[in-house]
């Protein structure tokens, strides 16, 4: 594959967690991301969904190498980011940006909006004059729907939605090729969520961005994504085109997630089969053997406990990791 844009191959992030041991600590790996692979094409949006704690943020950070990967490869335009040194990594990040979940926490409280948005310029366009920088900042502020005269305000003087727009402006000012959005709207009001999502879609169209859109809200993911990756305990359960995933979910976990989304039609809503997820998410420190979903799966058999299902093709543009998806 020579036209590779972003290729993630068997990515693993394990955090060593101290478990017992009095003097000499004993460490158990917490497998936050365990063998995730996917491709992303230019201008495409890949939605990543899953319950809280299933490793979505860790996956996003590992793609940017903000967290080192334990194993696997993240290849960006043909170079493996995991093999770069600090300097090369900084250079590569010019095209890779991120928008964070908590809008206020991701902005330095002692910097003005203008300084925050201009920070990538200081790092990557250090020859730029102050006036040029200011012009670019004002331009992007306008583009994301902020009044340029607010350039000197501090983060706490903005609303959550405005803070997120500052975060988006900072991520967009270098015109990156890929932006990772880590639940960019989950901290916002519903009415503002729509505005921010639409802003992201507009920017994507105008700049030709690829987005890795992390969320636990299936409705938003459906609105924004081209393809969707379903994550459970750090593993891929299903990876499919949006239409296929929402029309014919193959994996029991995806089916359960989708059946929990309310349908706006009352008759349909009343008649639909609800698959309830029973039990809690197992601890990622001690995941079930075989298929990690088996403790909560209605279709689980002995095979599921003994063998880990591999991702296999289940139709056009649809891959699923389940032994019994055909049943």
């Amino acid at each position: 594959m020579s036209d590779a844009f972003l290729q993630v191959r068997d990515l693993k992030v394990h955090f060593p967690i101290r478990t017992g041991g009095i003097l000499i600590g004993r460490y158990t790996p917490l497998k936050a991301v365990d063998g995730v692979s996917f491709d992303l094409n230019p201008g495409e949006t890949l939605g990543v969904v899953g319950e809280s704690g299933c490793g979505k943020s860790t996956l996003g950070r590992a793609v940017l190498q903000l967290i080192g990967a334990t194993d696997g490869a993240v290849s960006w335009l043909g170079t493996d980011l995991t093999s770069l040194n600090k300097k090369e990594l900084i250079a590569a990040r010019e095209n890779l940006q991120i928008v964070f979940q908590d809008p206020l926490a991701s902005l330095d409280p002692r910097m003005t909006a203008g300084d925050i948005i201009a920070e990538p310029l200081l790092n990557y366009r250090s020859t730029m004059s102050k006036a040029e920088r200011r012009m670019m900042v004002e331009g992007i502020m306008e583009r994301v729907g902020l009044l340029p005269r607010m350039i000197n305000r501090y983060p706490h003087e903005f609303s959550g939605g405005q803070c997120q727009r500052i975060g988006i402006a900072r991520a967009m000012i270098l015109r990156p090729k890929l932006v990772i959005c880590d639940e960019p709207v989950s901290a916002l009001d519903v009415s503002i969520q729509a505005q921010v999502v639409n802003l992201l879609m507009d920017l994507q169209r105008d700049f030709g961005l690829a987005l890795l859109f992390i969320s636990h809200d299936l409705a938003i993911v459906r609105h924004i994504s081209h393809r969707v990756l379903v994550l459970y305990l750090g593993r891929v359960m299903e990876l499919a085109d949006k239409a296929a995933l929402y029309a014919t979910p193959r994996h029991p976990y995806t089916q359960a997630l989708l059946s929990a989304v309310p349908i706006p039609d009352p008759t349909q809503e009343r008649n639909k089969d609800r698959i309830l997820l029973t039990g809690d998410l197992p601890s990622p420190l001690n995941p079930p053997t075989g298929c990690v979903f088996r403790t909560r799966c209605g279709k689980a058999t002995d095979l599921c406990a003994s063998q880990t299902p591999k991702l296999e093709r289940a139709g056009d543009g649809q891959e699923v990791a389940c032994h019994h998806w055909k049943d």
Partner: protein
Amino acid sequence: MSDVPINKRRSGSNLSVPNADALDKAADVEGRSLWQDAFRRLKANRAAMISAIFLIVLAFICFVGTAFVPWSYEEIDWDILEATPPNFATGHYLGTDSLGRDLLARILQGGQVSFLVGILATSVALVIGVSVGATAGFVGGRVDQFLMRFVDVMYAVPLMFFIIILMVVFGRNFYLMFLAIGFVEWLTMSRIVRGQTLTLKNKEFIEAARASGGSTTSIILRHIVPNVFGVVIVYVTLTIPQVILLESFLSFLGLGVQPPMTSWGALIAEGAQEMEITPRTLILPAVCLSTTLFCFNFLGDGLRDALDPKDR
């Protein structure tokens, strides 16, 4: 732990920020940086401004005023040889102490020592404390372990013991005392800075800065230092009075400045012995010292508020 000084001192700050809103409007469109902003807010805080001006004037008088006083601090007026009330004819504008030395000249010279010790020793503590604390906090791991265990060991060494050893090894030296005090005071500073750095390090905006292409150095300078500064500045203004008091204690024990040289602390100690006969010799230096300490506290409070954009 490191929050205690702030919270304790919060009440009663914010004395006056009369028309900060109007100032903001005016500054809205022009460029502004944290430091410019902080200075603007500081100027709007009347208590802090008065304190700052007072301190500058007092320091100026102490350092320059000695030239205009007819007597020097060590000269004994052989015609008097006892404590006398102010007398303009002899040039003793504030009278003399029990040995017949001019009190005004001694207060000015004592002020020089107290200001110097306060500022120099605190600077030593500031530089060592901030660099050790920030390094330990940001780098973490073994470096952190090593530095903090060293601090623990230093804490365990009794202060007097440490200073006496220094005096014995290097002899009695005026500047050595500043260093010695600074070497002791940096311990707490480094712990405070380390704690602050640790909490900052895991904040999302630091990660955001890294994602925006910041190097470790630029992150420390652009994000860690300004965010730690507010706490450090308060601690500095608490340390200055502490150091001045410590110096007077050392002088009292004979480990500090040597007579005939003096400091405010030493003057107070001397004055206390004669306070029933000549209360003047106690009250005058005591007033100078306490007003100075008071002003440093106000200034520190004002600086902290000024450096926090949320405190408008």
